[in-house]
C-alpha cells in the first residue's frame, strides 16, 4: 500500500456517521427543541422587552451565538465520545494495529464529528428562521466560520477524548470550561453592553472572537475586528493540530 489510506479514513468516517444515524431522531429533535425553547424564552419573553442590539432585533441577534453554542458543544461531545468509547471498551486496539497514521485517524473522527455538528448547526439555523427574520450578509464567510469552528472544536474534543480516563472527565471540559466561555463570550449580548472593566476581561475569552466573527457574517456588526476573529480561530486550530500531532508522536495515553 502506498499513499494515504483513504479506505481507512472512509471506514472510520462511516463507522462514526452510522452511530449518528442510529440515533438520528435524538440527534435531530433535541437541537430543534432546545433552540425553540431558547427562542421562546430569550426571543419572545425577554427579547420583546429588549430594544435592538447594534441595530438588530434581539431575537435575530442571538441566532449566531446560539448556533455557535450548539456547534461547539456538539463538535466536542461527538469527537471526544468517538475516540473515548473505543478506548473505554478496548476496540482501540484495532485502530492502533491498522496501517493508518495519526492524520488519517484524525480525519476520520474529526471529519465525522464536524459533519454532525455542521448538520445540527444547519438545523438550528433553519429552526431559527421560523421564529425570527434573519439575514446573512456574508454567506461565504458564514460557512467558512461555521466549518472552521466545527473542525477546530472537534479537534479539541478529540484531544479531550484521548486525555479523559473516565466518563466524568469526558464531561468535565465541555461542562466547566466550554459552556461558561460560550455563555460569557457574547452569545446573548454584545460586549459593548458590559461595563468597561468586564469588557477588558472578556477580551481574554477566545470564544468572543469566534462569536463576534460569526455574527459579523450575518449582520455586519462585530465586537472585534473580523481579521482578529479569523486569527483567533486559526490560532486555536493550529494549537489543537499541534497537540494532536504530539499525542500520536509520543503515544500519550494511546500506546504505552
Amino acid at each position, binding site marked *: *500500500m502506498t499513499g494515504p*489510506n*483513504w*479506505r*481507512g479514513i*472512509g*471506514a*472510520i468516517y*462511516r*463507522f462514526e456517521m*452510522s*452511530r449518528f444515524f*442510529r440515533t438520528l431522531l435524538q440527534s435531530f429533535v433535541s437541537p430543534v427543541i432546545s433552540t425553540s425553547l431558547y427562542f421562546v424564552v430569550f426571543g419572545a419573553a425577554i427579547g420583546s422587552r429588549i430594544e435592538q442590539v447594534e441595530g438588530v432585533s434581539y431575537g435575530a441577534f442571538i441566532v449566531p451565538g446560539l448556533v455557535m453554542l450548539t456547534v461547539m458543544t456538539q463538535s466536542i461531545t461527538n469527537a471526544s465520545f468517538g475516540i473515548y*468509547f*473505543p478506548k473505554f*471498551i*478496548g*476496540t482501540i*486496539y*484495532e*485502530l*492502533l*494495529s*491498522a*496501517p*493508518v*497514521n495519526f492524520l488519517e485517524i484524525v480525519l476520520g473522527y474529526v471529519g465525522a464529528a464536524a459533519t454532525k455538528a455542521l448538520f445540527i448547526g444547519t438545523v438550528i439555523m433553519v429552526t431559527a428562521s421560523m421564529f425570527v427574520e434573519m439575514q446573512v450578509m456574508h454567506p461565504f464567510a458564514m460557512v467558512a466560520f461555521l466549518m472552521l469552528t466545527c473542525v477546530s472544536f472537534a479537534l479539541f474534543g478529540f484531544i479531550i477524548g484521548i486525555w479523559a480516563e473516565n466518563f466524568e472527565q469526558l464531561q468535565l471540559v465541555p461542562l466547566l470550561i466550554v459552556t461558561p466561555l460560550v455563555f460569557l463570550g457574547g452569545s446573548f449580548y454584545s460586549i459593548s453592553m458590559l461595563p468597561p472593566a468586564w469588557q477588558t476581561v472578556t477580551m481574554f475569552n477566545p470564544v468572543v472572537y469566534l462569536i463576534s466573527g460569526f455574527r459579523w457574517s450575518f449582520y455586519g456588526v462585530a465586537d472585534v475586528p473580523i481579521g482578529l476573529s479569523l486569527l483567533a480561530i486559526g490560532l486555536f486550530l493550529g494549537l489543537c493540530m499541534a497537540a494532536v500531532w504530539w499525542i500520536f508522536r509520543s*503515544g500519550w495515553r494511546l*500506546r*504505552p
Partner: protein
Amino acid sequence: MSAIVKVDRLEKTYADGFQALSSVSLDIAHGEVLALLGPNGAGKTTLISTICGLVQPTGGSVHVDGHDIAADYRQARALIGLVPQEITLEPFDKVISSVRFSRGLFGKPRDEAHIERTLRQLSLWDKRNSRIKELSGGMKRRVLIAKALAHEPRILFLDEPTAGVDVELRRGMWDTVAGLKADGVTIILTTHYIEEAEAIADRVGVINKGRILLVEDKDKLMARMGRKQLRIELHEPLTALPEGLSGHDLELVDDGAALVYTYDTAGPRTGITRLLSDLAAAGIVLRDIQTSQSSLEDIFVGLVQEEDAA
C-alpha cells in the same frame, strides 16, 4: 524455512521501570504455528502487542516480511491480523458491518465474497445481521477472529484464544487454526494451556519474566526433554536399595513399596533390560510395572522453576 517475522533483541521497559521484555530474539517461519507458553505476566501479550504496534518498544527491532514495524509500519501491519485476549467489540454494531469496517480500516477494497467466506468458515454467516451484544461469548470471540482475517493477513496473532472457553469451543478453535494453517497463514498464539500447544503447535516457545527460555520444534522438544519413568511395584517393601542396584537411577518411593526408574527415551539404551536382570539377581519379586512419559506441561513447569530459582 525463511522467517516471516524476525524479532531482534526486543526490549520493553514501561515508564514505571517494569521490564516486560528483555532482549527477546525470535524468528517465526512462514506458515508455521508457534505457541508461546508462559505463566501470567511472563510478557506474552507485551511481545505480541509490540509486534502489532500497540506498544512502543524501548529497544531492538522487529521485521515483518522484511518491513520494519516502525519505519514501514503500513506494509508491516497490512500483513498482520490480531485477535486480542479480551473480547473487545462495539456492542451495537452488526457482525457483518464490524467485519467490513476492519477490512476498510486496513485499506482493502470491499470484497463481499471474502467476507462471506470468512464468516462461513467461522460459522457466523447466519448471525451476520445480529448485533454483537446479542451473541454468545464464543461467537464474539469468533467475530474477533473474523475481523482479524477481514483484510486477508498472512500472519495471525491469537492472544489466548481459548481463555475461558469451554472444551467444545476450544476444539472448534483448534480446527479453525488448523484450517488457517492449511491456507498458508502463519499463526502465533499465546496460551497457558499446555495441551493447546501440544495439540496444534509446530514449535513451542517458552517465555518467562520477559525472556525467551527456549524455542523448539514441539516433537523434538518432547523427545529431547521427554523423560520416561518406569514404576515398579514390589511384592515385599524394601527399607533400602540393595547394593547391586546402586548403578541404576532408582528411587525408593511409597515407604519402600515401589521403585521409580527414570530413563531417557532419546538415549542409545534405556537400561531396562539390565535393570530387570539386576532386580532378579537381587532376589526382588515384582508385582506390577508401568511406564509414564513427561508431558509438555512437566517440561514447561521444570523450565520455569529453573528460571525462577536462578
